């Protein structure tokens, strides 16, 4: 089999990358390989609203947002294969398997990695206690409730205040379960403010910051969990233990980009994001292999995934057409005070097709501080932010014209007042 561009994964990133690549050059042969039996990825189970305000200026649910993209595929001649698992990626050949074709290879000019991310499971959290039924990741519970139509339990404790956990606190409550508490190890929530308001506050569900689960009880099924307050070093504080009767524990303790394929392909990984190191065109350390969406870094807004993936798709199309700009200056982007990582990591100025969007996350909560951008030590941008938290991605946009002067380094930092 042959294709100009193979897209690994048909979720929001893959759909947006495929569409923008096809719009860049309608004659390109673009193939999406998706392991699920439908396109749309995680959007299919995200039936809540709040998607698309940036992209469509409308508030859509996940399935509606996905449909807006899926509806464009046929018109653009984009091919896709469902129930197909990619086994191996190299820059010019992708190996996959499905039950009709068996194992097959696709020779291609470029690959876009759009595998998304996975939830951190119980095994990665070191929660002591027994191993009864009734412990689910929040996303698994979301799939059970929203797609399969099963309720995982009736009395629920949620560990972790990531957005899926918050959304599931509301969802379980709406379906008649009692959510007794959401515990968060950190002194701040990992989710969006709006979700704390509309998912917890609306239903009087307590959010216990600096708390964690220290024991799970129950032989066949969860019967209770023991929670405790934690100190600054995340150690349980003796004497603060409380036992909460429940039949279900949901885990919303972080998402990890799914980079098994990237790693075996030899793509360089950024330890701060667990995603590939990319340049302004979302190209990884292997020429012709691009990455976008949650496989690159975990986003809180699908709108940003779509925008980023659009750029990755266009870059892949230009790569296939060997439409390379003249070599020019390369600017490194450095993480300054309070900045955990940036995407991209470096910029080739001549390859920029518009303004440069730099996205990043902070390592802590900062109130009434400034986001500063320095070109070779000289302050270029200094913007006041009332609040910066690790749970909300930040961005700065730099004009292409400002970059032609080509500093050798751009430093992004949070300056405290």
């Amino acid at each position, binding site marked *: 089999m042959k294709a100009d561009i193979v897209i690994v994964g048909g979720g929001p990133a893959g759909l947006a990358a495929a569409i923008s690549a096809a719009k860049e050059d309608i004659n390109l042969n673009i193939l999406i390989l998706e392991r699920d039996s439908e396109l749309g990825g995680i959007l299919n189970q995200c039936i809540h609203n709040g998607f698309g*305000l940036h992209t469509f200026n409308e508030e859509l*649910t*996940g399935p*509606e947002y996905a*449909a807006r993209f899926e509806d464009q595929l046929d018109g653009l001649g984009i091919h896709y294969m469902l129930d197909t698992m990619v086994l191996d990626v190299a820059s010019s050949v992708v190996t996959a398997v499905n039950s009709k074709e068996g194992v097959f290879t696709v020779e291609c000019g470029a690959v876009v990695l759009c595998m998304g991310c996975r939830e951190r499971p119980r095994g990665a959290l070191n929660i002591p206690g027994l191993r009864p039924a009734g412990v689910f990741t929040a996303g698994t519970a979301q799939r059970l409730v*929203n797609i399969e*139509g099963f309720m995982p339990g009736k009395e629920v404790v949620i560990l972790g205040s990531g957005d899926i956990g918050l959304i599931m606190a509301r969802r379980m409550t709406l379906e008649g379960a009692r959510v007794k508490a959401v515990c968060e190890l950190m002194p701040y929530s990992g989710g969006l403010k*709006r979700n704390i*308001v509309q998912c917890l506050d609306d239903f009087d569900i307590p959010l216990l910051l600096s708390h964690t689960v220290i024991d799970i009880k129950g032989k066949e099924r969860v019967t209770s969990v023991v929670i405790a307050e934690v100190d600054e070093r995340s150690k349980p504080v003796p004497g603060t233990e409380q036992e909460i009767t429940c039949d279900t524990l949901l885990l919303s303790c972080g998402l990890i980009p799914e980079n098994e394929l990237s790693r075996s392909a030899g793509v360089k990984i950024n330890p701060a994001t667990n995603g590939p190191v990319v340049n302004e065109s979302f190209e990884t350390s292997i020429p012709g292999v691009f990455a976008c969406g949650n496989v690159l870094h975990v986003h809180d*807004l699908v709108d940003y995934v779509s925008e980023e993936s659009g750029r990755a798709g266009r870059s892949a199309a230009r790569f296939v057409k060997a439409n390379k700009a003249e070599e020019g200056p390369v600017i490194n982007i450095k993480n300054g005070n309070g900045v955990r990582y940036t995407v991209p990591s470096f910029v080739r100025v001549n390859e920029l097709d518009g303004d440069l969007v730099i996205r990043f996350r902070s390592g802590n909560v900062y109130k009434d501080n400034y986001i500063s951008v320095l070109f070779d030590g000289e302050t270029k941008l200094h913007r006041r932010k009332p609040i910066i938290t690790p749970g909300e991605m930040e961005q700065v946009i730099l004009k292409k014209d400002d970059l032609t002067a080509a500093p050798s380094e751009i430093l992004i930092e949070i300056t405290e007042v």
Partner: protein
Amino acid sequence: MEKRELTCINCPMGCRITVTMEGDDIIAVEGNTCKRGFVYACNEVKSPVRTVTTTIKVTGGVVDRVSCKTKEPVPKNKIFEVMDAINKASCKAPVAIGDVLIEDCAGTGIPVVATKAVSPA
């Protein structure tokens, strides 16, 4: 004068809005970055509303449940009545996005519409 601090829930920006009230009258709305935020703040202090998103039973389709939402936000204190009405209802495949599944949900005057397509089995 009373000041109320709100977090806008219209989009993930989560703007912090301050509404200044004089009795029942809104004197000022500050902190919103768009018109939706202004509308949200005015509603929230007087009669808060929420869009309900859930699933509804579907018969004769490739799947058994289809996702749906109230076409407009419903009063916050009606959320559980709306859920009840949706859980008692069902629809038949095929379903297209935007199809009205319940005309007037739980006396709110607001319809429930499908948010996903379901093909017949």
